[in-house]
């Protein structure tokens, strides 16, 4: 079910109405859990089995971490985390494993090839892992003392189901830490809904997704074989830029919608994007792009690795950075393209860190803008690996971009400029604000902006398609 489809709005209105009815005041979480199950199972009911299994594994494991014997706590945590990773790895890599086994054992390989990646699996397994590790740290090191779980197991199972399957965040994040989310579970009141926050997030989110991303999608569809063989070098270049804007609008749009939807039920999720295209370094980019994934990897992978490898000094740090980025890449998909994506970003962060430590570049006017442009171009080119996971296609694309020559297609330039403009404006407004020029402070600018966005949603949206990050 997509946030842009009619059945979703029917489900949302029904769940919202039931949620705030006085008769269900003690069952609000159950109402949301049931609504989330319907949301997830709408297209593929059999996937509900997977979700229920994941919830049960995490509920049982987390219960025994919190209430079980101290000497087994570490083992249970490790087992739970490994189970989550096993589920994720199985579904992510079954297809590619099946293809490689085709000449060895056809029956097994055919079965594996037929296994498709369930929507949202990367996100809800990460929620499960987060819960187990946070509870372990709570009990063992008194970290996150606010994180407690119910003694009644069924009550705890329901809360776990809610945390893992809450529909705004389940399919494509943000990946919310359990110590941030679980303490919020309490009775919610209609009068406490912050409508301004909810409405502004929803309008911005739907605008970015349906107007910007869905329209750019029609243009970036040509970054696929054989279509890109038609175009000149310059057109291929602007198509890549369009892809960056589309990716941002799609994912940031989804995240904003998730924030808005969660808030109408009384829950706060974390911001997932902070104007990433004004980053002046790759490291800064990753602090602004998909913030929840960055924080998850930092808390549960990078920091523990750095601590355990500290005796190796800089080599340990380099290893930790590269491992984290490679896993980030692999999380996005099965294939060498994703591993290389992670490797390139990891290497870039290391090189950048080394250069800034040892080489002093004298500041000159425009250096900040130059850095922004360089970082934007870097991430844009590396994202080609997402769009064309086949490395041979990437090679052909880049080769054509360098050698094909020819004039720019003005029609494409116009469309890309038109639909990318909102993203550019958003970043410019933020950049000016962070430098002391807040143009949104004038009384009527914000309401007019939101009115225009709403108008555009009603009258200028593209075709409804899956959110890009659903495939991860």
């Amino acid at each position, binding site marked *: 079910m997509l946030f842009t489809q009619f059945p979703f709005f029917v489900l949302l209105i029904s769940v919202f109405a039931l949620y705030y009815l006085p008769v269900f005041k003690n069952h609000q979480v159950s109402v949301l859990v049931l609504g989330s199950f319907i949301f997830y199972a709408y297209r593929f009911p059999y996937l509900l089995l997977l979700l229920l299994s994941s919830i049960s594994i995490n509920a049982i494991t987390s219960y025994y971490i919190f209430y079980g014997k101290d000497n087994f706590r570490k083992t249970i945590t490790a087992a739970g985390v490994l189970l989550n990773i096993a589920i994720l790895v199985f579904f992510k890599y079954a297809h590619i494993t099946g293809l490689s086994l085709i000449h060895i054992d056809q029956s097994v390989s055919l079965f594996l090839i037929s296994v498709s990646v369930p929507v949202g699996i990367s996100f809800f397994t990460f929620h499960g892992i987060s819960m187990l590790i946070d509870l372990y740290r709570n009990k063992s090191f008194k970290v996150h003392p606010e994180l407690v779980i119910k003694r009644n197991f069924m009550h705890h199972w329901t809360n776990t189901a809610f945390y893992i399957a809450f529909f705004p965040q389940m399919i494509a994040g943000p990946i919310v830490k359990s110590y941030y989310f679980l303490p919020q579970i309490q009775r919610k009141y209609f009068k406490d809904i912050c409508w301004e926050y909810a409405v502004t997030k929803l309008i911005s989110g739907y605008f970015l997704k349906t107007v910007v991303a869905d329209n750019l999608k029609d243009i970036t569809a040509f970054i696929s074989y054989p279509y890109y063989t038609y175009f000149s070098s310059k057109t291929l270049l602007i198509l890549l830029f369009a892809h960056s804007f589309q990716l941002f609008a799609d994912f940031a749009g989804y995240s904003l919608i998730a924030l808005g939807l969660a808030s109408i039920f009384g829950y706060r999720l974390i911001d997932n994007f902070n104007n990433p295209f004004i980053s002046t370094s790759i490291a800064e980019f990753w602090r602004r792009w998909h913030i929840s994934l960055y924080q998850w990897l930092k808390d549960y992978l990078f920091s523990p690795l750095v601590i355990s490898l500290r005796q190796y000094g800089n080599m340990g740090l380099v290893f930790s950075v590269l491992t984290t980025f490679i896993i980030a890449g692999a999380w996005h998909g099965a294939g060498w393209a994703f591993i290389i994506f992670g490797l390139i970003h990891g290497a870039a962060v290391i090189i950048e860190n080394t250069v800034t430590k040892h080489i002093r570049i004298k500041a000159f006017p425009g250096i900040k803008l130059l850095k922004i442009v360089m970082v934007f171009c870097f991430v844009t080119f590396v994202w080609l690996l997402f769009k064309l996971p086949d490395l041979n296609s990437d090679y052909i694309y880049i080769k054509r971009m360098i050698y094909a020559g020819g004039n720019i297609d003005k029609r494409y330039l116009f469309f890309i400029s038109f639909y990318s403009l909102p993203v550019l404006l958003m970043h410019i407004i933020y950049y000016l604000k962070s430098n002391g020029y807040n143009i949104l402070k004038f009384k009527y600018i914000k309401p007019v902006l939101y009115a225009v966005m709403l*108008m555009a949603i009603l*009258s200028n949206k593209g*075709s409804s398609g899956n959110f890009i990050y659903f495939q991860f």
Partner: protein
Amino acid sequence: MAFFVICNIYLILFMPSIGSGENDRQKNIIAAQEYIDYNTHRQIVLAGSSCTRRLDSSMLPHYIYNLAFGGENMLTGLEIIRRCPVKPRIVLIELNQILLDMDSDFVASLFTPILYKIRPYVPSLQEKYQFINLILPRINKTYLGPNYYKSLPKEQLEKMANDENSENSKTLNYSKLDNHINLVKNYINENKAKAIKTVLYLLPWNCLVNNNKINDYLRLKFPINEYQWIESDSCINYSFNDLHHFDVQGARKYSIYLKSQIEKLFPDIIINRKSQ
């Protein structure tokens, strides 16, 4: 809300000139919405894929409505016809891309409850009145350049043809093919019950492509003694952008050919139009 109302009043009062859609998706939606929102009796409707979508509408008589869609196949058009209350007299079904699946999301988006009822009366909800379609006719076409499908270079075409012919020489996916053939037959039978005539046709593809296997199978499953067919024309007579789609000249030529074939099969159509 004020913006919305002002915009609609402007569109209703001034009916500004619009573009025909700048990409395949938009052209699809505009064609579908025109058919659904202004669902009047039509003589002939074409249901097919991008191959039919690219036919030259200026060469087709006004009593033919092109309900073919880029990136889709005949099943999408047939489903739209089925859902609309007013039926055409004749449906022409292009069978070229029969292995594609019907885009149920696309069809569902056209028939969104409530919205599809009010859309004919609220112009800004219609795809053709999207802001970009309103401003494009006002931008100097000399600046933007013509909007046409580009042709692939010969070496590229030959390579792609080799790949496709190699795929075509393998065993067909008979289970999927039969499933889709049965779907088409169901539509034809439903249409027959409503006194709608159906005619089948296969557009010629680039001569480099050898798709005889699937075409022969289709002719076997839709035998000429049970189903009406448009006579096939040779690929030699046409020019193509790529392996499956006519270029501008090819589309014009085939449109003229299709018109002549229709008039041959249904001479009363010409008589009816002349007498009106």
